Structure formats: structure tokens, C-alpha cells
């Protein structure tokens, strides 16, 4: 136990030979799931290492499903926000004592080191408070300006949106100083009961399609009319087909159902807005294919072993954040000007790959349409990559070059 603010030196170092490390991932669901390869690679490199995870409190149930994680520390962002605002309204010593108490409640002992995977200062500070050493995006502590090579790469890609081929999940591996595991990794999941009306999901008929109706940002929402049309077309084409609507947006799900003929509603399940994250994982895991534009649940679907079809537009980019694994498909929207396809993102589509994705589900045939290209996921020793459907399947060479440039000392 380290000394509570008196202040004195923090003395709570672990006293045995076991090495303890902490992964700090305070971003959203998709980022947490994309941490999975890094966790696997770290544990693979040092099986005796005890590895804990610090993640946002609402995501902790998923954190507990990550293989290789011993303990999950829950970061209560709302409480910290209130605490920060109270301290901002009039700083007292008690605010620091309370903050120290919160940190010590997370862990009574300091970790040997922390892998910090976010560039936000609070993640770096949390890592610095909980561990003796921080391996993360900044080279000289939380206030240092100089970025680690992989952090610099990620920031550069995010800022310039330039074409890239290293997946964010693999860049996380780089930030942690390890190489990608070279294979897809799934969550540790044991079958979980669902509410009675959802229990039939995945058990009768099929194929079962999970449809993610919402998105984390308005610009990434697929119009409900498009989903209605997708469901209608799919149900007509596959008499035994089943669709499960998932996500948080109940209103959108209702709207989709309101417009559908009653004859197909018996094959439609609405699970929106009423499932916990582990229940959502269970539902997605029972589906044959999961389709949507919301990258967080898409990553969850991939992590529970479902085949994923993503519609990527607005800011979503297949090469950086496509579902991790093999045989996932992504339709990526492009801006086409004067017949030339732009590599820039921020595209809002005017047409949608409805029939194309139904064909892919039913026949495996992959075809693009104007404004969209189709990509298939693969995985090799340099991590996940996407190659264009119908194109040359060879892995892109630039990934290997980048790994050798950014992580030369451990080059394999």
C-alpha cells in the first residue's frame, strides 16, 4: 500500500519476483477490442507476466473477457469529471487526498510498468500514477512533446488521412514494443443465457444476421430506410433467414420494423437498447454474419468469432480499423470525381451496397458498386490487412518496411 497523501514517497512497490504490468486503454469499445492482439502478443512474449487492464468502467465486462488479462481496474470517468470540476471550483488539499484515494482504490500497489495506448493526457497520467514506468505514446513523460515512433505514425495517419496499411490494432502492438500475434484472437467467452425472448437467437433456421442499426456519431448512421430495404430484400431472398437488430438505438429499430410487412416480422428479433455488453457479445456470437457501420460492435462481433461485413464511410477507414481477423468484408465508400476515386475520407454515400452484401452473405460473391470498393481481411505475421476483392491477394509490402523502420531493434 503506498502512502496516502501526506505526501511522502509512494512506497507501494510489489515485493515479490513476479512482474506486474498494466494496460491502460481509456478510449471506446472499438479501441478496447483492438487492444486484444497487443495483449496476446505481450503475454506470448512473456507468459509469466501478470497483466492487468485499466479501462472505462462501462467497458469492464468486456475487459474481463479479454484473454491474458488477470484483473480489470475500472476507471470511473464520470466521478473523475465531477471531482475535477469540484477542484476547479476551489482547490483544497482534500481534493488531492481524494484523488489519491481513488487511485489507491484501483490498485494498492504500483505496477512495474504500464502500457498506455491512448494519447490523451489523462491516460498517460493514470499510467504514471499507477506504475513506476510508462511505455506509451510519449517518450519523456506526460508532459514530453516527443512522440514514440508508433505514436507519431498513428497521429500522422489520423491527421493526414494518408493511405496506410498498418492496422490500428497492430500499431498498438508496436506501441507496446511487441510484434503482432500473426493470427486473429477471440474473446474468452462461455455461453451466457439471454432474456427468454432472445434465447432462440442462433438456434433455429438461418442464416442469422446481426444488424447494427446505430452508430457512435450521426455522420456514421445508415438511414433507417436503407436498413428496412436490406431486411426486406434479405427476408424475401432467404425464407429461413433471421435478422436480429442490435445496438442502443431503440427508436431507429422501431422505425425499421414499423415499415416492414407483418409477414416477415416473425423472423425479426429486436434486441436494441436492452442488452448488457456481455449479452450483446453473446448475441453477436450466435449470428453467422454481423452487418453494420458502427465500428465498436463490429469489432466485438469479430472478437466473438462472427463473420463481419462493414459499411465504412464518413471517417471510418478499412485499413486502419477494419474488423481484425480473416474473411471479414468491408465496403468502403469513396468519393468519385470526374471518374477518379479519391483516397480521402469524409464521404457520405448516396447509394448503399444492399444487394451486394446480401449476395456476399448468400453466395460469397463480392462486388462493388459505384462509389464503393470491397475489401477482404487477412492476417499474417505483420498483422491484419485488407486486400481489394478481385485484386491481387498478396500482402502489401509497406507494412513490413514500416515495422522494420519503427521497431528495428526487434526486427524479426
Amino acid at each position, binding site marked *: 500500500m503506498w502512502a496516502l*497523501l*501526506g*505526501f511522502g514517497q*509512494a512506497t507501494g512497490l510489489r515485493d515479490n519476483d513476479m512482474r506486474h504490468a498494466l494496460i491502460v486503454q481509456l478510449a471506446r469499445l472499438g479501441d478496447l477490442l483492438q487492444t486484444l492482439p497487443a495483449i496476446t502478443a505481450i503475454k506470448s512474449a512473456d507468459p509469466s507476466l501478470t497483466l492487468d487492464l485499466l479501462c472505462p468502467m462501462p467497458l469492464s465486462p468486456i475487459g474481463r473477457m479479454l484473454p491474458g488479462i488477470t484483473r480489470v481496474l475500472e476507471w470511473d470517468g464520470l466521478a*473523475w*469529471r465531477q*471531482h*475535477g*470540476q469540484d*477542484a*476547479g*471550483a*476551489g*482547490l*483544497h*488539499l482534500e*481534493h*488531492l487526498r481524494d*484523488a*489519491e484515494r481513488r*487511485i489507491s482504490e484501483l490498485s494498492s500497489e504500483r505496477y512495474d510498468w504500464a502500457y498506455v495506448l491512448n494519447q*490523451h*493526457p*489523462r491516460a498517460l*497520467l*493514470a499510467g*504514471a*500514477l499507477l506504475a513506476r514506468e510508462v511505455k506509451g505514446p510519449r517518450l*519523456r*513523460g*506526460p*508532459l*514530453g*512533446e516527443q512522440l514514440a515512433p508508433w505514436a507519431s505514425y498513428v497521429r500522422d495517419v489520423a491527421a493526414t488521412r494518408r493511405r496506410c496499411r498498418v492496422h490500428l490494432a497492430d500499431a498498438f502492438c508496436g506501441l507496446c514494443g511487441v510484434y503482432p500475434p500473426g493470427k486473429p484472437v477471440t474473446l474468452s467467452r462461455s455461453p451466457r443465457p439471454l432474456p427468454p425472448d432472445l434465447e432462440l437467437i442462433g438456434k433455429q433456421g438461418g442464416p442469422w444476421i446481426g444488424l447494427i442499426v446505430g452508430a457512435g456519431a450521426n455522420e456514421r448512421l445508415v438511414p433507417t430506410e436503407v436498413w428496412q430495404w436490406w431486411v426486406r430484400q434479405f427476408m424475401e431472398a432467404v425464407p429461413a433467414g433471421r435478422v436480429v437488430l442490435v445496438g442502443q438505438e431503440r427508436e431507429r429499430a422501431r422505425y425499421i420494423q414499423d415499415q416492414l410487412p407483418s409477414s416477415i416480422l416473425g423472423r425479426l428479433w429486436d434486441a436494441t437498447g436492452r442488452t448488457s455488453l456481455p449479452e450483446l457479445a453473446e448475441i453477436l456470437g450466435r449470428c453467422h454474419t454481423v452487418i453494420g457501420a458502427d465500428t465498436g460492435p463490429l469489432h466485438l462481433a469479430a472478437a466473438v468469432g462472427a463473420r463481419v461485413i462493414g459499411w465504412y464511410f464518413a471517417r471510418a477507414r478499412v485499413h486502419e480499423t477494419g474488423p481484425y481477423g480473416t474473411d471479414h468484408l468491408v465496403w468502403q465508400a469513396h468519393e468519385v470525381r470526374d471518374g477518379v476515386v479519391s483516397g480521402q475520407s469524409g464521404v457520405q454515400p448516396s447509394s448503399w451496397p444492399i444487394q451486394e452484401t446480401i449476395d456476399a452473405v448468400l453466395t460469397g460473391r463480392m462486388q462493388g458498386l459505384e462509389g464503393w470498393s470491397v475489401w477482404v481481411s487477412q492476417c499474417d505475421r505483420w498483422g491484419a490487412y485488407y486486400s481489394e476483392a478481385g485484386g491481387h491477394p498478396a500482402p502489401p509490402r509497406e507494412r513490413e518496411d514500416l515495422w522494420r523502420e519503427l521497431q528495428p531493434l526487434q526486427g524479426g
Partner: protein
Amino acid sequence: MDYLNHNLEGLRHTCPALAAAVKDASGGVLMLKESREGSVSAMCEGQWIHSAYDPRKEAKAWAEAQLREWQAGEVAVVLGVGLLYHVEALAAVKAAGSRLAVVIPDVSILKDALRARPMGAWLNAVEWILGTAPEMAEQLVSHSAALRVFTYAPAARLHAEIHRELEEWLRRSVAKQQGGQLHVAVVGPIYGGSLPIAKYVVTALETLGHRVSWIDHSLHRASYDAFGAYRDMRHRQAMQSRFAEVLSLSTITHLSEDPPDLVLAIAQAPLTLAVLEHLRKKKFLTAMWFVENYRHLTYWQQLAAGYDYWFVIQQAECHEAFKRAGARSVGYLPMAADPAVHRPLTLTDAERTEYGADLSFVGAGYPNRRVLLPRWLSKDWSFKLWGNEWEGAADLAPVLQRSGARIDTEACMKVFNASAINLNLHSCGGEALDPQADFVNPRTFELAACGAFQLTDERALLPDLFTEEEIVRFRRTEDVPALIRMWLDDPSGRRTVAEAARQRVLRQHTYGHRMKELLAAIGLRQPDRIGAILRGDRNAGALAVRAESAPEFSAMLRRFPLGQRVELKDVAADIRANGVGRALEREELLILLLDSYRAETRDLV
């Protein structure tokens, strides 16, 4: 049973003077009555002081409600004595070591209480405050701790006037001791008479050492006027109203980007009720100085519930009206002058010729002025009339200057300084003197600050502000010519009176004084927020002393000048400036972590 002597036994040791005073007091103010549950209760002037059913239960509920407000380190001051059930209940729930004081305006009531029922040991732990209002204020302020006033209304109503006086003295005492730096956002009007006052307020607050964000809506005057150019009145009103709403939102945007300790609006500031309610939800403190006659401009009725604090230039009926409309707190804050603007001038001969006269009047052509001023024209003295809105006042046309154009502040000062007698006639809608003559207009203070002699119509609130030796006033219109004649013949007397008025302004009636009083009033009601800042509790020196048990944190604070207000963001900025390239201390990491959450913009817009 002789409860009195038993109760006094303890008091004789802890507060012998009070014990003696109680013994000598007559008592008999309260009428004792048995409550339904059998304990003694009391009535006075036909009203119950404590519950007729269960005084203890009622007192317990009251005490628990007060406890939620009572912060650590504050001295609780109870107004209202009664049979002390509420004090006993508060003493029972208070945190160990916290101090409780009770104001005793009338020892006879305390005698009634001590005679009525047995008190416990808690009685001897109470600090009793008695004497005149200034004496009581001095005792309370000498605690050098934050005061949290709790009013037990059924008993306090018996001494409302003494309590008001005590609060005023407390306000003055606290005002004198102000040493901290606040961040005040001053929200001004788009145009009008309150615009210069908003500017004086900004200057005064800055001069007092506070940081001011001046949200100046006069920048938008041209657009506002443009929206007023539509032919149809409904269009004009709709567009100007919508425009005011936009300005209200722009105010909120400004506040969210640089959150102040206090939002101080000056009359006519374009803040809507919806925006004010939103600000309250986000825990912004708001105050309005309504420098208008509440009987003429009545928009306050729609906004009364919106502000946390109202300050008005009228008393009694005005306060009641505001409270009926939903205002939570209404205080009296008269007008003032800014000695940097309203000042004696040395004029050239040419200026004296242009601006000077035996008798002058500066102001707009309100109905009562149109009727009364012609009566005071005479061949025995020269008269100059300055200002606008005098169209159609044929009698006054020969004396109207600059064809009735509006004159600026600097020209006003020249007129005041150059005139032998300045008439100061408060405006009203009738044809005579203002029948509800209560508030004192800004002109009174401005003329006085210039060292200019004035003749003003009597106001109910004037005697508290100026004596008859400082400002000459008239109560009947027919007395004015004789007064003019008398004072024109007495230049030396005019100088004496005018100088006395100027000195009074400099002592008591500047905008600096007003802002100190306003902040002190809010500080008294917000001892843990505004009060703490004003006392200097947030200054680096005070914070460092309180943080001595944490040497590293204390050292961080001592890097700032002792008298400088220091907040989380300042400490964090200092760490960022000095922490690059070295391992940060644990306390520094915690400060930066808290600050990263503080810095999240309040989602106001």
C-alpha cells in the same frame, strides 16, 4: 420547577454578562402554550413561534435542512431565538468542533426560553451575540471564519429590522476586509442609460483587483437598430426579440469558454429566463443590478426567478414585488458615481461661456419636466436646457441648447462644472413632482462627484445618502424660485455645500463602494464560494498554510505570490511550464489529472 436558575447556572460560567442581562430582563414577550404532544411551545403577536403539534420534530427537520448547507470551517449564525428548540436541534446534528452562534436581539425572549424548559449542556457551547447591530457585526466578523447564516423564520420575523441592520453592518465589515480576486463576467445592455453604468461597474471591479470579462453587447447596436427599421411593429418586435435571444446565447458561449465566479448583469442586459435557468443548472451564480425604476420598466417580472441575486435602487415595496414575482434574494444598492469620470474640471473661458449659466438642466423631456421647467424660467437668471426629446416644448425652445441634441458625458461634465446651480428633477410621467419619490437617480451622485451645486427634488431614500448640508432639496415646486434666488446670491455657500457632497461621494458613494457592497452581500450568502474568494482563502498564501501537512503541495503553492488567487488551472499551468523534461512528483500528476477533467468545456451551448 425553576428552569431559569438551572439554565443560568452554566451560562454564568461561560457568559456571565449574558447571564446577568437575562436575570435583569423583564421577559414575558412570548406566550407559552402546550403543544399537542405535551411539550411547551410559544406564540407571539398571535402567531406560533414553534410548532403547535411537535416543536422538537419541527426543529429537527429545520436543523437537518440547514446542515446540508453548513460547510466545514464555517461558523453557523442563527437568526431567531424563540424557545431555542431549533438551536438545540442544530447543536445536536452539527459536526464535532464546528461553532454555533445565536444572535440575541432581545434578552427578554431568551429569558422566556430559559424559563420555559430545561436546556442541556449544549447551551453552554453556543456563542451568544448581543448588543447593537454594529457591535454584533463586529463580534461575528472577529471570528475570522466564514459565516453561514441560518434563519429560523417564525422567530426571526419578530426582529426583522434588527436582522436587516445586522446584515448591512456585516456586509460593510466584510466589504472592508475583501482581499481576494474574483472573476466577474459583467453583461451589459445593447444600448441605453444603463450602458455607461455597466462600464463604470467594469472599471470599479478592475480597480478593486478583480478579473473582469466585459460582455459588451453595445457592439451589436447597429444590427439591433437595423432590425427595428421594419415598417410593421410586429416584425420589428419579433426580429429584435429574436436578436436579443441570439445575444443571450452568445453570452452563454462566452461564459462557457471562460467560466467566471459570478455573472453580473446590468439592467437591460439581453439574458433570457431560459438562459438564466440553464446557467443555474450549470451552477453559475448570477446577479442583476437593476438600475431602473421598477414601476416604469417592468420586464423584471419575467426574469425575477432567473437571477440568484437582485440588487435594486428602491426599497420596501420594490423588494416585496420582486419576491412575489419569484426573486430569491433582493438587496438595496443605490446608484453611485465614478470619480474618474464625474470630476471637477478646470474650464477655459470659452467653455464657461458655452456651457455655463446661472441655472442648468441636463436631461430628456419627460412630461413632468415639460410642465415644471417653464415655471422656473426668469429674467433674473440665465437658464440653459440640455438634452433630447424636447420636441414641441415651445416654452423651453429659447433655452434649449444645440437644438435638443443628445450630449455626451464629457459635455455633461462641462455643464455641471460651469453652472452655478444644476437642477436635478427626477423624471416621472405626471405633471408634477414624482408622487412616488423614493429612489435617487445617478445624476445626484454625478453632480455631487463633480463638486457641482445642485437643487434636487426630495426623495425618500435621499437622507440616508446625503445630508441637507450636502445636497439642497425642495419638496414643493413653488419653493424652487426662492431657492434659486437665495443660492445664486451665495457663491461661497454653494461651494461649501458642493464640496461636502463631493467628499461624501468619495467616502461612500463610488461604484467601487457599490461593487464592494454587492460582492460582500453575495459573499455573506455564499460563504464557501464567493465569500471564500473574497476573504482570500483561495490566495496562494492561505492555501499553502492549509496544505502544510502535505509539504510537496504546499511548496507548489508557495511558488505563487502569496496574495495571488490560485486555482487548479493555475497550479496545473505552472506544472506544465516547469515540469517538462523531469520526473513529475505524485502530487503534480494528480493535479494534472484533475485539471484534465476540469478543462472539459461546460456543455452550455
